């Protein structure tokens, strides 16, 4: 049998024992995911940068609270989530990014903007599960842990959120469908 002392230390154990090199591993493992999450939650890369740094600093200060590497992901997301919720409360009017990536068609850019606007109009109870599960692709169990709710409650909010988003978007989708039809007809006529 292997002695406990010979087993490699987990990341959580290394962090808790004050091992500075473990921070590099921790950072490399999670920085990008947390940055993308805070960016989606705050809709702004500068705020996302601040929130992500703050998430890691808080995590390092409280790394004794987490028991295993398995719990590390949702624990870290939970810290990031709470920070984003606080930031959103402080600045409820979130600025939309002025430029969309180059190379996107106008229609796609317009749809993206409409979806973002529709999402901002939804209650936070719906927005958070939608971002975590549908965009960030966190499992339902992890998302429920992050939000501090039960899995059935999470699913109910997620599905109602999708439905509410769909309702808000239906006029946009309808308009775009009509415009596409018009363009098709024009093309056919010109041929």
């Amino acid at each position, binding site marked *: 049998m292997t002695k406990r002392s010979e087993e490699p230390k987990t990341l959580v154990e290394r962090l808790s024992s004050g091992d*500075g090199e473990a921070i590099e591993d921790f950072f490399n493992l999670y920085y990008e995911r947390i940055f993308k999450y805070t960016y989606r939650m705050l809709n702004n890369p500068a705020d996302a940068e601040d929130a992500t740094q703050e998430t890691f600093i808080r995590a390092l200060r409280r790394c004794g609270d987490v028991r295993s590497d398995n719990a590390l992901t949702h624990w870290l997301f939970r810290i990031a989530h709470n920070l984003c919720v606080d930031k959103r409360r402080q600045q409820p009017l979130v600025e939309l990014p002025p430029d969309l990536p180059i190379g996107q068609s106008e229609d796609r850019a317009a749809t993206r903007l409409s979806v973002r606007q529709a999402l901002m109009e939804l209650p936070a109870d719906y927005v958070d599960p939608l971002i975590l599960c549908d965009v960030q692709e966190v499992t339902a169990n992890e998302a429920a842990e992050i939000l501090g709710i039960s899995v059935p409650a999470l699913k109910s909010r997620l599905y109602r959120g999708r439905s509410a988003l769909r309702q808000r978007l239906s006029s946009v989708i309808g308009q775009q469908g009509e415009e596409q039809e018009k363009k098709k007809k024009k093309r056919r006529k010109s041929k």
Partner: protein
Amino acid sequence: MKGIDPMLLVGLFVDGELPAEAASAFMELMHDDPQLARAVEEARETKEMLKDALAVEGPTEEQKERARNRILAVAFQEGFRWRYHFGGQMELPLDGQLKLINE
């Protein structure tokens, strides 16, 4: 079906979380009920649109470096310890000059 929220069933189906038997029964229902089929299609479409709308760029190298430096500085101030690795072993002689040994 009484008491079950149809949206919950649609969501579970779209997310592939219905057990196999229930999923095939649901597919049969969809076949007979265009409204249900449409609800499924809309749920899928909404999910895709959301994913596309919230696609974001990852952090730039510059942002990453800035974050790394700040986080490491705070960790250093708060007592995290580093073991420094050098190509060869270092020794500190009495005159205080560091020099490489075992090159």
